[in-house]
């Protein structure tokens, strides 16, 4: 199971990098989202995957044991990362929209005004 998810993370990173290297800004932003989710999966995987374990919920707490229980901390970390990702996604899309409105272009090669004149 770990191997499958690890390969999947690799695939996500590959597609994210591919998207980042495209010339369109929209694809760049999609690439950022894909990489962000791949990173969340890394944290998820780092806690180890235990199937059918019980975490410590009030009335089933006595059934939980360290052997069968999944580590809850990475999930809390992912939640935090997702919340941050949500805020960033909203902001970055707004920024893209505003940029498109001012310049009317999607092309990354047009972003050369702030570089060497």
């Amino acid at each position, binding site marked *: 199971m770990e191997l499958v998810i690890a390969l999947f993370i690799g695939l996500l990173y590959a597609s994210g990098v591919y998207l980042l290297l495209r010339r369109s800004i929209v694809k760049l932003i999609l690439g950022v989202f894909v990489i962000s989710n791949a990173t969340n999966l890394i944290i998820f995987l*780092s806690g180890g995957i235990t199937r059918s374990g019980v975490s410590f919920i009030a009335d089933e707490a006595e059934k939980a044991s360290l052997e069968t229980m999944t580590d809850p901390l990475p999930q809390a970390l992912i939640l935090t990362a997702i919340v941050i990702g949500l805020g960033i996604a909203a902001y970055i899309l707004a920024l893209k929209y505003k940029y498109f409105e001012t310049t009317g272009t999607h092309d990354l090669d047009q972003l050369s005004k702030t570089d060497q004149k």
Partner: protein
Amino acid sequence: MIIALPIFLPLAFMIFAFLFRHFHGREYVAIGAAALNLLISVFLLIEVNTDGMVKIQMGDWPAPFGITLIADRFSALMVLVSAIVFMATMAYSIQSVDSRRKSFGFYLFSFGILMGVNGSFLAGDIFNLYVWFEVMLMASFILMSHGGERNQLEGAIKYLILNLISSFFFVAGIGLLYGKLGTLNMADIAQKLMSYETMPPELNPAFILIFVGFAIKGALAPFFFWLPASYHTPPPVVTALFAGLLTKVGIYSLIRFYTLFLHQNSEFWQPLILWIAGLSMVIGVITATSQFEFRKVLSFHIISQVGYVVMGLGLYTVAGLAGAIFFLAHNMISKTNAFLVAGYVHRQKGTLNLKVLGDFYKEHPLWAIFFFISAFSLAGLPPLSGFIGKYLLIKAGIDAQQLGIAFTALFVGFFTLFSMVKIWMEVFWKKTPEKQPVPIIKTALFDDKPVYINWMTWSSGAMAIIIVLTGVFATPVVDYCTLAAESLMKPSEYINFVLNHTQEL
């Protein structure tokens, strides 16, 4: 208890700014809050200086499980210096930010940056550090694109994408580290690493990822491209705030990580860090010589000066670290002040193109003096604070037998002087060219509301006075930095303090 206040005070101000959006005295409330923050950080510094370290466990959860906030001498000094920088920029912004930006949350997001920066300095937990980084970055993204001019949006996209990627590197590194060690508390990680005979190779990818994340955030040599592409686009006071605070947080975290974790594998990291330091210094300073925009020259110099700090870290001796800490503090103040002067030039002339400007000394001699002080402090002329910083670093380099890097630092100092003299000649000394070589595009925007105190002059002047004073009376500051460096060199103290070990490791 006081250690939580540098985080909660900006949060309280942000809530105020959220709820009272149309309150007209918000500038003065912001200045009051910034002054209070300065006061708190002075008290924090005093308390840390007497006790050595201060910590607090959020939610009363004991150390490796709960979130630790910890201040040692290094982080207390950083909190104090960032409070000074923040105070100056807030006072300056009263006149230099246009009222549209102010009513659209300029102060709200500035305090967001302050909260993120203070949090990163005080965090004792790597995931918490990441969260503070994100708080800081979110606020800085918004300030960067605030106002929506074309250049700003372009700069913001570059800044945003590269910083997001660095965050992903950092958080992926945290994930791998957690998977191997099962803890996030910095002291606990350091303790677990110490228990290994040799560093297990599985940890190297994690540390490399984290290092690259910090290097992008701190604008070190191969990763600095976002900085000069974006720092000259927002209003000058925002650039001053960013230049003073943001990259320095990346460097702070790098120093913290190196002294706690990475030094245990120093035969790999030390040459790498020294090379990166040398490259940053040389590349930053040489590219700066070819620039003809006030703020771009200063932006490239940020890269070279970050290289100095990392050089002190790479030496990894008490003297080197003390020099690095002193240089970091000096650089935050001098750099901010140089950008504040750039903001004043921008306000008066409407442009920052060096070829167009001139005669500034004749028209505004006081501001010319402020620039002289901060720029030549950056270049390292005695008796200003930059001289002390460079002297400490180069001396430490020679003492540590790292002659190559020491001489690099020396030569880079000359080039810095060259760039600063160029700005001085072009902006302040020469006559305004009769026939303009390039068309002037006036972009200055500012608040014309009458004020009773000339806040711009006072804030920049206070910074200039601080630069001169830290240069002339450097001994207590250097002593303090040496103490801070000594405690950084003994990570076991930090570990014992956080984890409440009574016996020595």
